[in-house]
C-alpha cells in the first residue's frame, strides 16, 4: 500500500507530541519542588519530594506531631505553588484562545476587559465596605469575578457580536472606562485601598487550600476548551474559510469567549492581575510546537504553569523578606522577552 507511510507519519507526530508533553510535565513537577524548597527556611529537594509523596499516599504520619518543615511544605508553600501553577495554566490557555479567536498576536486574557471589570468590582467592595459588612474573605474574589463576567457580556453587547476588531475595540473602551472608575473609587477609599493594591499588581497573598480548591476550576474549564482544539485551528483561517469548512464561527467564538473569560475571572479573583504570562507563553509555544491547538493548548498550559511557579519563586525570594507582587516579576521578565519576539518577527 503506497499510503502506508502517511499514517506512520501521523503516529510519529502523536509520539512526538506525547513525549514533548511528558517533558513539560516533568519540568512542571521539578519547578513545583524547587519553588517549595526555596524560602526563608531552606528545605532540600528530596525532603520536599518525599513529604509530598507521603502526604499523597495518605499516611497521616501515625498521629505524630507534624514537623515544622512538613507544615511549611504542606500548609504554606505547596498551596501557593499550586495556585501559581493553576494561574499560569489558566492564563496561558486563555491567552492562546484569545489570540486565536481574535487572530491578533497582541491579544491576551484581559482583552475583553475582564481585568478592569474585576478590579472595579474589588474596589467597589472596598469602597462600600461590603467586605467588612459580610466579614468573609471570599467577598472580594466572588464580587470581582462576577463583575469580570458581567464586563465580558457588556463588551459583547456593545460590539453587537460583530467582527473581531469591533470586539477588540469595545474591550478597550470598556477596559479603560472601568480602570478610571476603579482609580476614583480607590482614591476615595483612602488608606483601606492599600489592601487592594497587592491584588491589582497580581500575586498570591491569598494562599490556602480553600483558594486552591477554587482555582482547580481552571482544569475542567481548560479541558473543555481543549475539546474544541481542532475547531480553533480552523478558526485561524478566518471567518469565511472557517464557515466553509463547517465551523459555526459565531457560536464557537462566543462559547470560547465565555469559557476563557470565566477561566480568567476565576484566577483574577484569587491572584489579581498577573500580566504577560497569557501574552508571551502562547507565542513561545507556537514557535516551538506550531499552531495546531491540539498540541499548542496543552503545551502552553504546562509551560505557563511552570513559568509562573518559577516567577513566583523569584518574587518571594529575591528581595527577602519583602515579597514582590508576582505580576511585577512576570512583567519585568516578560516585557524584554516580548521585545525579543517582536524583533525576531512574531509568526
Amino acid at each position: 500500500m503506497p499510503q502506508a507511510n502517511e499514517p506512520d507519519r501521523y503516529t510519529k507526530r502523536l509520539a512526538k507530541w506525547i513525549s514533548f508533553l511528558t517533558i513539560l510535565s516533568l519540568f512542571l513537577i521539578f519547578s513545583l519542588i524547587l519553588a517549595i524548597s526555596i524560602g526563608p527556611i531552606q528545605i532540600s529537594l528530596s525532603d520536599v519530594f518525599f513529604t509530598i509523596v507521603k502526604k499523597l499516599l495518605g499516611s497521616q504520619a501515625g498521629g505524630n506531631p507534624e514537623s515544622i518543615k512538613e507544615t511549611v511544605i504542606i500548609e504554606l508553600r505547596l498551596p501557593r505553588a499550586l495556585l501559581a501553577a493553576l494561574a499560569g495554566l489558566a492564563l496561558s490557555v486563555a491567552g492562546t484562545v484569545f489570540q486565536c479567536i481574535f487572530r491578533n498576536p497582541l491579544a491576551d486574557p484581559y482583552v475583553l476587559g475582564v481585568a478592569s471589570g474585576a478590579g472595579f468590582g474589588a474596589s467597589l467592595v472596598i469602597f462600600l465596605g461590603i467586605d467588612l459588612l459580610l466579614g468573609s474573605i471570599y467577598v472580594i474574589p466572588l464580587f470581582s469575578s462576577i463583575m469580570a463576567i458581567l464586563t465580558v457580556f457588556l463588551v459583547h453587547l456593545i460590539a453587537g457580536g460583530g467582527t473581531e476588531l469591533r470586539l477588540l475595540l469595545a474591550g478597550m473602551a470598556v477596559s479603560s472606562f472601568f480602570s478610571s472608575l476603579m482609580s476614583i473609587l480607590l482614591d476615595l477609599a483612602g488608606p483601606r485601598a492599600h489592601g487592594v493594591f497587592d491584588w491589582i499588581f497580581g500575586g498570591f497573598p491569598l494562599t490556602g487550600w480553600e483558594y486552591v480548591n477554587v482555582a482547580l476550576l481552571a482544569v475542567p474549564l481548560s479541558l473543555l476548551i481543549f475539546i474544541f482544539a481542532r475547531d480553533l485551528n480552523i478558526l485561524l483561517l478566518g471567518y469565511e474559510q472557517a464557515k466553509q469548512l463547517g465551523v459555526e464561527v459565531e457560536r464557537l467564538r462566543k462559547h470560547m469567549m465565555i469559557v476563557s473569560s470565566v477561566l480568567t475571572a476565576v484566577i483574577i479573583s484569587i491572584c489579581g492581575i498577573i500580566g504577560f504570562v497569557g501574552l508571551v507563553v502562547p507565542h513561545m509555544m507556537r514557535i516551538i510546537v506550531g499552531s495546531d491547538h491540539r498540541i499548542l493548548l496543552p503545551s502552553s498550559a504546562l509551560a505557563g504553569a511552570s513559568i509562573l511557579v518559577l516567577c513566583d519563586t523569584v518574587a518571594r525570594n529575591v528581595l527577602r523578606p519583602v515579597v514582590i507582587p508576582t505580576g511585577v516579576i512576570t512583567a519585568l521578565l516578560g516585557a524584554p522577552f516580548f521585545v525579543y519576539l517582536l524583533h525576531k518577527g512574531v509568526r
Partner: protein
Amino acid sequence: MAILKVCNIECYYESTKVLDGISFSINPGDFVGVLGPNGSGKTTLLRALSKVLKPRIGAVFLENSNIYLMKSREVAKNIAVVPQDAAPAGFNLTVLDFVLMGRHPHMSRFKMESEKDFAIAKRAMEMTNTLYLAEKNINELSGGERQRVLIARALTQEPKVLLLDEPTSHLDVNNQLEIMELLKRLCLERKMAVLAVLHDFNIASHYCDSLILLNGGRIVSMGAVDDVLTSENIKKVFQVDVIVKRNPITGSLYVIPALIRRKETDQGFSIHIICGAGTGTGLMKILAEMGFNLTVGVLNAPDTDYETAQLLNIPSVIEAPFSPISEENYRANLEIILRSDAVVISSVPFGYANLKNLEAAREAIKRGIPVIVLDDIPIEQRDFTKGEATEIIRELRDKGAIFVRNEQDLLNAIFTLKKNKDSVKQEVIR
C-alpha cells in the same frame, strides 16, 4: 435533478445591493464558469452559495434543502470552496495538516484523523500535484503552490459541489491547464458540479459547459458558451471590443481583444484600399488610427487583410474563399470606390482571381477619383496574369495615378490630396 439551485437571491453589504435577482441551477457533472468585471458580484455569489453571506431575499437549495437552514458542517460536507489565493497565513502549519483541515466536517470532535482521512488527503494532494509539499510549512509556498494546496483541501472535503474563485489566477500556463483539466475530470468522472469564477475567456470557453455573465450584481447572459460569449455581450459588460472566433483545432470559441481602437478624430476623407494577403494590414492600421474613413475590397474571406479589416471594423466587400471575384462583388466594390476620395492599391500580387480589383481602379481614375499605387515591389514581379495586370497598372500611370515607393510617400500623397480637397471645399464655400 439539480444539485444546487439558486432562487432569485438578493445580497447586500450593509445597505448596498451586490447581487440582484440571481437564479440558476447546476446539475451533477456540470462545469459552470462565472465571468464578469471586477465588482460585478462574482465573489459575493460564491459567498452566498457557501452559507457565508445570507441573501436577504431568495434561497439557495442543496438537493432540495435550504442551505441556510442546514448546519454549516452538513453544508461543508457537500459544498467546498477554493478561495481566491489567501495571503501567507499568520500561522505555523505543515501543508499536510492544512489539507487535512478539509476533513473537519467529516470528523468527530473527539477523534484524531484516521487512516482513511489521511488516504483521502493524500489522494487529493496527488491529484493536485502537491504531495511533494506535504512537510513544508504553509507559509513557504509560492502563489501557485498555495492555490493547488487550497484545491487539495477542498477535494479532501469530498464535496458534491466545488466552488472556485479564480482558481488559475496565480498560475503559469502549464499549471492553469493542469488545474482546469483536473476540474473537468472531476466533473466527468465523479459527477462533481463545478462552478468557477474565471477571468480568462478562452479558458472559460474551452472547459465550461455553460457560462454565467455577471455585471453590476445581475446576470447579463447565461447559458451555453456560444450564446454567452459574444462580442456584443463582452462589449456591453467589459466595454472592450473583441473578436470571437472558433478555434479550428479544438472547436471552442476564443476571444481576441481588438487592441487598436479607432481614433475619434475624423479626417473627413475616405479612402478605399485594394489589398490582400496581408499587404494592406499595415496601411489599414496606420490610416485607421489617423482617422481616415476606410473601405476595403474585394477580399477573400480567410485572409490576413480580411481579419484586420474585421478587427478594425472597416466596411469591406468579401468574396467567398478561394473564388475569383464575382460580377456582383465587383459592382459592389466599384460602388464603394466611387464614393471614396481616393483609392490606394497595395503591392498585392495580382492573379486572375483579383484582377477585377485593378479594373475597378481603372474605372475610378476614369471618373476622376485619384488612385495611389504603392509600388515598392515592381508589378512585373507580382503579376500572375501573363501581363494583363502590368498593362492595367501602366494604363493607370498614363492616366495620372500617383506612384509611391514607401508608406511615408504614400501618407504624403494622401495628405496632399486631402489638402486639395479641403481647399476646393473652402472655395466652394466662398
